[in-house]
Structures are given as structure tokens and as C-alpha cells.
């Protein structure tokens, strides 16, 4: 597939939404306001405002999907997918992504100042759900004067948000793309999240979430959480191919507790890299939102939720993804077909595991591009 071109230099913008008097009402009953939402856009908004594709980022993503910021060479997390001629073709679409609320990359979250106390929220930040995140995104669209989405697209936790969009704002979504995702976490998924949170909260530097007031960072706990989660993002085959039993900077095992194996060193590197860019409290909140996600708890709820839905769906999964394996996507497809929705589902064969949705899997990119291009031609 042609690689297209980069979107070049971009910048993150910030929208001030809601107020103390007219706050964002959360599923928990709590209210949040004012709310800052960080976002980026690529391409040009059509005069009819009908060419908008919203990207929902995954657990540790941010609004910086593509391009580079001035003075930096760090590309966005889905850079290879966004630009003229690319999957999200900026000659056709106006692409938008915002950092979720409770995030730590510019949007209001547990690291923000609580206007009521003047202190950092920490664990006083209200619990947010996937539906709450989508509510904030909808407010951003209102703020930007965008009535309707051509498509909403997300991988993993982003796929949950995309599905939530289709259910909560059916008259504002043209197409919904759910990639490497699920309608609900399994016990095993929740278990992994629980251990991640436990690692963070049991770190002596956690200080009940007030670590920044102690000039501390629960870096061991957060790194451990990331290391464990990272294993679930890769497949056993992928790890084996990449590392096998290779030793790290040595010819023989140490008979000690050094990082003998290359895979240990790799995970450690992933952990320490992550700690520098991500907030521990945000990790707690977002994994909890993931645990709570369950738009179809039973058949009646599914029927109610899907009744007004008119958009068409593209559901993608990856053969070696065991975090949200193909059967989880099939569950979504099954419930959509049960309610006679228009759905295309494709499983892609790859050893790249859950992470595949971010990576260069040519048939996957071709399908995603074909689906989105067609939406542009249809409108």
C-alpha cells in the first residue's frame, strides 16, 4: 500500500468546556466543571462540516495521533495511518482526536487542580466511565460546531468509546469502527487490571494518590503495571520471535538476579519509559473505566441500546491478540447481527498480538482505508 505523506507539524489545542454552574454530569452522579479537553485535528473541515472522523485513543494514548510538534521529532502514536493518501486520508477527512477526561495528556484528570480545594485532585477526582468520556467528546464537537461524525474509530479501549458513541448518539454517527476491542472485560481482563492497580497503590511512593504533593512518583508500581500489561499486548509467538531465550549483554546466565534475559531488559525499558510520560492516578481511573464498560449486560439491555442505532459497523480483530481475542469481537458482531445491524467483520492473521491495531498490517490497513474511503465517497 502507498505510504502517503505525513501531516507535518501539528499542535495540541485546548477547549474549555462546562462550568461549575453547568457541569459535566457523570454516571457516578458526580459533577465536573470546568473541564479542559486537549485535542488535535488534521485535514480541513468541509464547509458542510460533514467530513469529520473522530479517533478515540486507547488506554495510554493521547490527542497527538499524527505528525510532530514544533521542535520535537516524536511522531504521533498512529502517525503512519494519518495523512494525505493514508488510511485516515486527510485529503478526504477532517480527523479529530481528543485526550480522554481523567487522562494525563492535557485533559482534566486526577492530576488537575480541584477548583473546590485548590489542591490536585488525586483520588478525589470523580470516577469516570466510558460514557462520561464520550460525553466530554460530544461537548467538544458542540464547541467546534460539528453536528455529526462521518465515522468514529477506535482500537482497544478506543473501540469501546467508538461503540459507546454509536449507542449514545445514534443520530450523530455515520459509521462506527471497533478494532481489537470487546463489549466487556472478562474476569481475566479485570484480573490483569486489578493487579496493575495493586502494583501502583502498594508502591510506598503512592501516598494515597497524593504523590505529587510529596514530590514523589510511584514509579516502581507504575512500571510494574506497564510491564505486565505490555506482555498482554504482545503474543507469545511475537515475544518468542523477538527475544526467544536470548541473553542481554552477556554470554552466560549470571546465577543471580540481574536481568539475564533480553526480554527482561526489554520490559524494564518499557516500564521506565512509560513512567516518564504517564500518570499513575490516570492509570487507575482509566483501567477502572475499562472494567465497568458493559453496554450489553443482558439481552433486553442490548435490544434497548441498539434499537435507535442506524450507523454501520466495521469490526476488526487480530489472530494472535489474546488480550481481546477474535471471539470477543465475534460477540459484538453476533449482538449486532441479532439486531439486524449492518456490520463488516474481519480477522487479520498476524503474530503482532493486541498491539497489531497500531502497526503496519497491510490487509488491515487496506480494509480500514477502503471502509473509510467509501464513507467519503458516499457523502
Amino acid at each position: 500500500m502507498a505510504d502517503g505523506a505525513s501531516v507535518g507539524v501539528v499542535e495540541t489545542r485546548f477547549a474549555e468546556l462546562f462550568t461549575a454552574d453547568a457541569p459535566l454530569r457523570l454516571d457516578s452522579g458526580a459533577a465536573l466543571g470546568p473541564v479542559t479537553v486537549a485535542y488535535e485535528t488534521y485535514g480541513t473541515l468541509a464547509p458542510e462540516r460533514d467530513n469529520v472522523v473522530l479517533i478515540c485513543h486507547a488506554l495510554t494514548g493521547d490527542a497527538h495521533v499524527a505528525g510532530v510538534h514544533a521542535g520535537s521529532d516524536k511522531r504521533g502514536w498512529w502517525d503512519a495511518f494519518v495523512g494525505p493518501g493514508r488510511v485516515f486520508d486527510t485529503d478526504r477527512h477532517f480527523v479529530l482526536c481528543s485526550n480522554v477526561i481523567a487522562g494525563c495528556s492535557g485533559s482534566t484528570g486526577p492530576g488537575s487542580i480541584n477548583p473546590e480545594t485548590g489542591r490536585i485532585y488525586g483520588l478525589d477526582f470523580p470516577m469516570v466511565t466510558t460514557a462520561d468520556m464520550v460525553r466530554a467528546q460530544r461537548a467538544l464537537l458542540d464547541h467546534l460546531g460539528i453536528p455529526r461524525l462521518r465515522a468514529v474509530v477506535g482500537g482497544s479501549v478506543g473501540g469501546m468509546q467508538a461503540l459507546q458513541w454509536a449507542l449514545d448518539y445514534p443520530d450523530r454517527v455515520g459509521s462506527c469502527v471497533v478494532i481489537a476491542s470487546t463489549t466487556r472485560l472478562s474476569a481475566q481482563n479485570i484480573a490483569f487490571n486489578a493487579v496493575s492497580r495493586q502494583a501502583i497503590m502498594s508502591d510506598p511512593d503512592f501516598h494515597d494518590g497524593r504523590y505529587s504533593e510529596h514530590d514523589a512518583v510511584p514509579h516502581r508500581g507504575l512500571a510494574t503495571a506497564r510491564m505486565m500489561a505490555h506482555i498482554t499486548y504482545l503474543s507469545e509467538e511475537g515475544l518468542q520471535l523477538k527475544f526467544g531465550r536470548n541473553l542481554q549483554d552477556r554470554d552466560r546466565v549470571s546465577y543471580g538476579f540481574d536481568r539475564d534475559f533480553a526480554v527482561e531488559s526489554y520490559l524494564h525499558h518499557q516500564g521506565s519509559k512509560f513512567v516518564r510520560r504517564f500518570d499513575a492516578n490516570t492509570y487507575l481511573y482509566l483501567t477502572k473505566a475499562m472494567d465497568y464498560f458493559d453496554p450489553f449486560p443482558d439481552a433486553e439491555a442490548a435490544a434497548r441500546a441498539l434499537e435507535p442505532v442506524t450507523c454501520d459497523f466495521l469490526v476488526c480483530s487480530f489472530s494472535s491478540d489474546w488480550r481481546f481475542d477474535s471471539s470477543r469481537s465475534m460477540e459484538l458482531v453476533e449482538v449486532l447481527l441479532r439486531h439486524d445491524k449492518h456490520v463488516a467483520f474481519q480477522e487479520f492473521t498476524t503474530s503482532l498480538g493486541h498491539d497489531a491495531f497500531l502497526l503496519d498490517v497491510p490487509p488491515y490497513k487496506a480494509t480500514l482505508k477502503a471502509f473509510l474511503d467509501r464513507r467519503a465517497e458516499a457523502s
Partner: protein
Amino acid sequence: MSERDLAAPAELRKDQRHVFALIPEGARVLDLGCGDGALLAALVSRRGVRGHGVEIDDDRMLDCIRRGLSVVHEDIDEGLAVHPDESCDFVILSQTLQATRDPRRLLREMSRVGRASVVSFPNFGHWRVRLELLFRGRMPKSRDLPYEWYETPNIHLCTIADFDDLVRDEGFVVRRRILLNGRGNPMRTSIFAGWRASGAIYLLQHGGDARPT
């Protein structure tokens, strides 16, 4: 079914045109092994059909997505698990039955999902096939059966008589049977059909309560 209904889009293969003509306006259709989606797309756009497809091949999936079809990437040998009971009027299985691992199980699955089935297959009892085996002593090859025995995907070939037996044993009602001659056109009479037909298309009704089609 009137003659007018037989007017099918020219872009379809001959056998697809016969299937197209069997599907009434506005029906709900599931096309198993829908390939590049040509038949399904024609049914959707010209017959107002509410259609879904199933396809296993990546490249053909892409064709279907380019056509904007509702299509699931699925191996029909694994069953039709994502498709709900009685969710469509017609399940189409076009030139695929003989390549499935368990044709009887698949037909049962089709009867679970749809009120009627349209099944087409090559007739292994065609006289050319019989003569080839009789005189050449080799596994027959033809336009419909172009593969060598060791690489053929057609692992469950049957004759029209074989299929009739299975249909009867399973309790399906044959609503319509189109016998095709060597050029793929409907035969005028069914005399010696088992010898003369190179293939057949069946419209099967499942159970007793389905409405006449």
C-alpha cells in the same frame, strides 16, 4: 416466479443470475461464501434485499467492503454461530457445498438461520464425469471441476440423486429445482436429469411452517 423476474444484472455469473431470480423483493438474505460480493450487492441495490454475507478470503473481503456490504469474515466449516436463529428468509450457498467439511451439518445450520435455502452445486453424476471415470479411470476434470484430485477443495462431491436423498432425509421441501445444462442454462425437461445436468440449483424450504416463497 414470472419470466420478468429472471432478468438479472449482466455483470453476474450465469449461475448467480439464476439465484438472483429466485430471491423476491425486500427479502432478508444471508450469502455464504459470498466471494467478491457481486451477487449480494446486486440483490441489495436492485432487489432492496436486506443482505449479509460470509466470506473467508481476505482479498474478497476487501472487495465486499469496497462495495459497502455487511459481511462477516468467517469459516462456514466452523458453523454459523454469529448468525441468529431464523434471522433471514433465504440462505444462499452457491457452488460451495461440495467444498465444506460437513455438508449435512451446514445444511442444518442453514435451516436454523433461514426459512429457506438456495443451494447450487456441480452434479458429479453428469455423463461426462461418469464416462471419464469409466473409460479413463481417472478422477474427472471439467469446467465445473477443474482441479487435480490431490489439490481439489471439493471434498464432498455428490450427484443430484445423492442430494435428493439428503434433502429428503433432512425433511426439507424442494420448492424449486433448476437443472443446468453444460452451458449453464436451465434444462427444459428433467428426463435423465442425473445424467444430463452439469449442475443444479435447489430452493429448499425448512420445516412445515415457512411461508410459500
